[in-house]
């Protein structure tokens, strides 16, 4: 009746925690960033932060795709949803996030056409069934979601579906890592690298990031995966090495998934792109290649990437503060009354802290 005992075994977890405690004695303050929102959620769910020695700090990174989506993309999605003969399709997480004005959820209540999908491949059927309607998909997400979007465009091209359009706001993880490491304020000692993204991009790409000169462990999502990732980063710090180690080989192959990457490359080309609360990161976004511009739903407004007043999501996403360091956290800003995107999205750091970790204060 145990839940997948091999990766959740309490006795093994205890042994790993003891080992982490021993290594921590020989180290100064260590700041490990978990880049991925799924890691943030699981760390919260496990109550892991309280089980780590005081000098081992886990910081949440920019790995919640909805949180970093610029306000102008959300504003554009809202505009598309309100156009006659248009349906705005989106993943569910997106609909509560406000841009500079209303959220998709708010305009939906007023009758705007919004469809929540679990996979972009559902768009094909929608576009076929409603040829007179333009289906615009808010294409948000990291390397894990991009291949499915690329595949959707491939099918739409084959089937000649002129009414399917992509509002492309995909973001790439390696350029963000490079920007975080290059930022003098962040003081990151090591990274837990995202298992799912790495399954696509592979190990090698991390080694080509010049600025990434701290240890990194590619980490899965079970308790023992996460503890193993932390342990591996600490070991490297003690040995004064800064390697990229794959601690999730049961899912991540060294070469990643070349087929998925080829699919991305076929349809998209990298561009400089804004991350909400962080700013422009060179070559961290994607645009449709010229041959496929027919599938493009362009961003309609410019320059509303700012955060709601008083929201510190930018600092949270860079690991400069934990959510409880934001003066609005838990008082003005809660999941019922969210102010910033990090509280709205279920994978956002502020939401994860609110849900699981208020006990730590």
């Amino acid at each position, binding site marked *: *009746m145990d*839940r*997948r005992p091999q990766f959740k075994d309490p006795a093994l*977890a205890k042994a790993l925690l003891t080992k982490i405690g021993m290594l921590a004695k020989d180290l100064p303050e260590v700041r490990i960033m978990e880049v991925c929102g799924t890691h943030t959620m699981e760390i919260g*769910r*496990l*109550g892991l932060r309280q*089980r780590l020695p005081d000098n081992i700090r886990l910081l949440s990174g920019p790995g919640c795709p909805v949180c970093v989506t610029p306000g102008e993309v959300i504003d554009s999605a809202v505009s598309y949803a309100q156009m006659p003969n248009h349906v705005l399709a989106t993943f569910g997480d997106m609909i509560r996030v406000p841009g500079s004005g209303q959220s998709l959820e708010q305009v939906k209540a007023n009758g705007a056409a919004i469809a929540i999908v679990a996979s972009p491949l559902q768009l094909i059927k929608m576009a076929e069934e409603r040829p007179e309607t333009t289906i615009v998909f808010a294409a948000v997400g990291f390397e894990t979601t991009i291949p499915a979007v690329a595949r959707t465009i491939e099918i739409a091209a084959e089937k000649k579906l002129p009414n399917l359009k992509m509002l492309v706001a995909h973001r790439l993880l390696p350029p963000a890592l490079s920007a975080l490491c290059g930022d003098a304020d962040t003081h990151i000692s090591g990274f837990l690298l995202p298992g799912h993204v790495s399954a696509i991009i592979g190990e090698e790409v991390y080694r080509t990031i010049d600025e990434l000169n701290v240890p990194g462990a590619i980490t899965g999502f079970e*308790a023992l995966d996460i503890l193993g990732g932390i342990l591996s980063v600490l070991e490297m710090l003690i040995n004064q090495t800064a390697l990229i180690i794959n601690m999730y080989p049961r899912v991540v192959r060294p070469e990643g998934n070349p087929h998925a990457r080829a699919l991305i490359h076929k349809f998209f080309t990298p561009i400089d792109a804004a991350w909400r609360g962080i700013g422009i990161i060179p070559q961290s976004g994607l645009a449709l290649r010229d041959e496929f511009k027919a599938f493009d739903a362009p961003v309609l407004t410019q320059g509303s990437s700012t955060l709601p007043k008083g929201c510190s999501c930018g600092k949270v996403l860079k690991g400069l503060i934990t959510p409880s360091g934001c003066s609005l956290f838990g008082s003005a800003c809660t999941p019922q009354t969210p102010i910033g995107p990090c509280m709205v999205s279920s994978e956002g750091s502020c939401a994860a802290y609110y849900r699981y970790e208020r*006990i730590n204060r």
Partner: protein
Amino acid sequence: MNDEPVRLLHGSGQGLQLLLNQVVLPSLHIHEKDGPLEDAALLTGLTGTLAFTTDSFVVNPLRFNGGDIGKLAACGTINDLAMMGAKPHALSVSLIIEEGLLFSDLKSFLNSLRQECETAGAAIVCGDTKVVDAGKGDGLYINTSGIGRVSTPYNLSAAHARPGDCVIVSGPIGQHGIAILAARQQLGFSSTVVSDCAALDKLALTLLEAVPETRVLRDATRGGCAAVLNEIADASNVTITLDQAAIPVQPGVAAACDYLGLDPLQVANEGRFVAVVPEASAGKALGALKRHPLGKDSALIGQVELRERFGLLIQTEIGGKRIVEMPSGLLLPRIC
């Protein structure tokens, strides 16, 4: 006439007579010899404390692995009575039928309803049947109310948990919610999880007879164990700390929850209760429950402590502690 649909004309006059005489009453085993249908049932011979409860059932879809809306409508009300230590005595059954529901389906739902009542020893004594236009309902809604006899006055209340007490769950959690999601094909994969939908009257009495000092008994329906345990913690002004490793969860439920990002504690049950008993009685309580087939996987899952800031906490598999929230209403609509 089995595969004929119910039509609007079955809502009154001769049509209603036909629907009642050919489908509803025979399925519920109510016969002419029982006498004519009167405006109200007269219940005789009831003395002492009575329990009275009502519940409406709008589950979608009407059939799921391990049950249907009829079984659910009987068990839901029987269980609400049982949680107050009452023995189910009589039920009312009101049907709101959407035009288009097949006679054969209606029969089978009412049969399952009747079977549960028979097993629990509760008579179906009154009811009502309405038909609404196509598109104005969802096949079938059922309301049941129930009266139960409390022969031994147990002192049960959500406000009675005290520091030191033990928290017991009567079996593996989360099966009903996952079975419903699977039946709606919302899982994204096929699942063999069977709903735990069951009448708990016998199991509850088994526990109460063995441990009359039981303090709290609640069935963990909507919102799952997380909702009832939060309610108990708040009503009793205590903090309950659960032990993650001790909570029984079937592998199929665990896998579905992992995939959907749900916490099994927040997923609905329709045949599980949580009980709070004094620490000294915990062994006796578990022993009694485990001897009953419905309680064979019951487990001690947590401890009641002095009130802290949060009502419900869990000790995780790595020894950390976290909050277990009251689930938000939107998680799983229309599960019962």
